[in-house]
């Protein structure tokens, strides 16, 4: 079975510090965090820390197998690449259908090229679909996972998911002690 990898957080561990949001925004900067302020780079994390009365956790893309965002995209700008659902920002024309379609609220809109250092006049930049790309190409893997002080994130890989499920099936098949 060809399943995608995804990142998910555990609300039992999350302390709502937003380190993940900052790490995500930094990981996608085309400049360094030290100069981001000087060039007035927009802050565009691809996940969102949510606090409810019961718990807190960051919410981001589940990299769905039959991704509603991709299915609805009239520009065919959202496709699966290397196991992640990614946005081709050149094709996207900002219709926001993906925002309506995503059941997790994981889709956002942001300034195209806003993560580049010379994003002159981001107000004039095109607004395009913006989502978790699993930090594709980043040597350390997803930046949110690395930054979390509470170790609240899990990178769910297909083989591990299948192993977990297999273990649970075995446990379920075991007679009670």
């Amino acid at each position: 079975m060809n399943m995608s990898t995804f990142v998910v957080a555990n609300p039992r561990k999350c302390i709502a510090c937003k380190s993940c949001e900052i790490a995500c925004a930094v990981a996608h900067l085309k400049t360094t965090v030290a100069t981001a302020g000087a060039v007035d780079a927009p802050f565009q994390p691809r996940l969102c820390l949510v606090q409810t009365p019961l718990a807190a956790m960051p919410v981001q893309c589940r990299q769905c197998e039959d991704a509603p965002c991709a299915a609805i995209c009239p520009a065919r700008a959202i496709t699966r690449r290397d196991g992640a659902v990614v946005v081709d920002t050149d094709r996207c024309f900002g219709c926001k259908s993906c925002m309506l379609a995503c059941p997790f609220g994981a889709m956002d809109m942001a300034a195209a090229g806003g993560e580049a250092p010379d994003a002159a006049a981001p107000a004039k930049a095109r607004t395009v679909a913006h989502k978790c790309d699993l930090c594709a190409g980043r040597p350390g893997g997803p930046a949110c996972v690395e930054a979390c002080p509470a170790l609240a994130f899990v990178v769910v890989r297909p083989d591990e998911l299948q192993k977990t499920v297999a273990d649970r099936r075995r446990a379920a098949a075991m007679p009670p002690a």
Partner: protein
Amino acid sequence: MTNAILELKEFTVRDAIFAIGTNATDCHPLIGVYMLEAHARGTKLIVADPRRTELAKHADIWLRHRPGTDVALLNGMMHVILTESLMDRDFIAARTENFDALRETVLAYPPERASAITHVPADKIAAAARMFARAENAATYYTMGITQHVTGVDNVLSVSNLALLTGNLGKPKAGVNPLRGQNNVQGACDMGALPNVFPAYQPVTDDKIREKFEKAWGVPLSGKPGLTIPDVLHGLEHGSVKALFIFGENPMRSDPDINHVKHCMENVDFSPLKEARFIVVQDLFLTETAEIADVVLPGASFAEKDGTFSNTERRVQRVRQAVAPVGKPDWLILTELMRAMGTKADYAGPEAVFDEMRTLAPSYAGISYARLEQGGIPWPCPNESHPGTPILHVGKCNRGPGLFCAVDFKPPAENPDESYPLILTTGRVAAHYHTGTMTRRCWGLDAAHPEESLEIHPEDAARLGIAHDDPIRVTTRRGTLTTKANVTTRVPVGTTFISFHFSETPGNILTNSAADPISKTPEYKVCAVRVERARA
């Protein structure tokens, strides 16, 4: 802290953590994470906080007490422990004194009475008391939710009474553990940056101690305790204080009742002594306080510093300069000032300063830079072969027997009334540090939490016709500001919350400068406030 931070890694299902007046998950995130990890291993977690903090959300028992009622809450818990015979009789007999006075006071606080004062259900108070007392080891952690009250000292004494009553002192995974709010505020206190003591808490009023320092420093020293911050402001206002050297502090944002602070610092209106007023500020940036200073000196950041930090568990650790200071190292500026004022001050560097200090401060005597190369050492460390003291009061308390100090509940200085019908309490958020001098200048931190909002309960908001994100005006007897409403059950009905990180909406323009009579710590945690929808 009487105990060590990493003990949190050793807590088991038989132990309990009691976090009172500490929003550890926001303000001490790593300690907060250790607490949640211990809880996930089965350690009991009791949280007492008016706000539904992340830590409170995970607690086995959450005591949502009314701000400023900590003594009643703790006395109520101790009442249950006494009447259900859950106290540690052996510890009380062998290690403490004044138990009878405590018993007499605490017996006047049955859970029903404590409940009427705190608004915590009586059965929850009882359940928390049982959980704490029945744990093999129970450690109490607190921060400003305990200390920033007119009853701050009483609150700390109550925490101490609870630890003594249950034998939770002088052993691992126990104790009375204030989590300090800055990386080196423990060190600053250790070094005598307090009005009444020389380094290592040696009283200025003690002739022998003073002679020791006079001999070492070659100058006569005053035996009169200095001024606390409220007294300094009063002195400025009335002309008895003429100069201030403010070093890495931003009282124009961090002190309560900023309008009054500004009045005192600027001393504008009725000031025959205006010319005599002289303020020096040494800081990293031109803070709101530096803006009104006569002279501003460049402070060095942590990355530019060489020396030691003493952290919340009394652990002395080396900090090594990573980049050269933009100006001069702090110690050099201070020694040049000393020389300009005619005092001898020739030190080769921070190590020489440290070595002089440890000949005078017994609890630091055994700590050297060479030893610190091997790792941090918690004081007291009386000699170079001493390993340091991760746990205080083992075997016996520093003063001898542990002293029960019975205290009665006293209400906060300012309570809601018709004109100011809600309670305002203040604190911090995870992304920002103190007055934002550093974090508001950090791209990621400021973007993650870019603006202030006032937390207000949905019922209060509905009654006032306020919706989430509405612009609102927040007013106390001392000042007013405009911000956004954060309509949330994070705060209880009748209580609102604001931080003090945002210069454009400074929370401390609202707070009350009424202070604890002993510590002089102001009551940042309770005042009366009026909230109304602002015209957009």
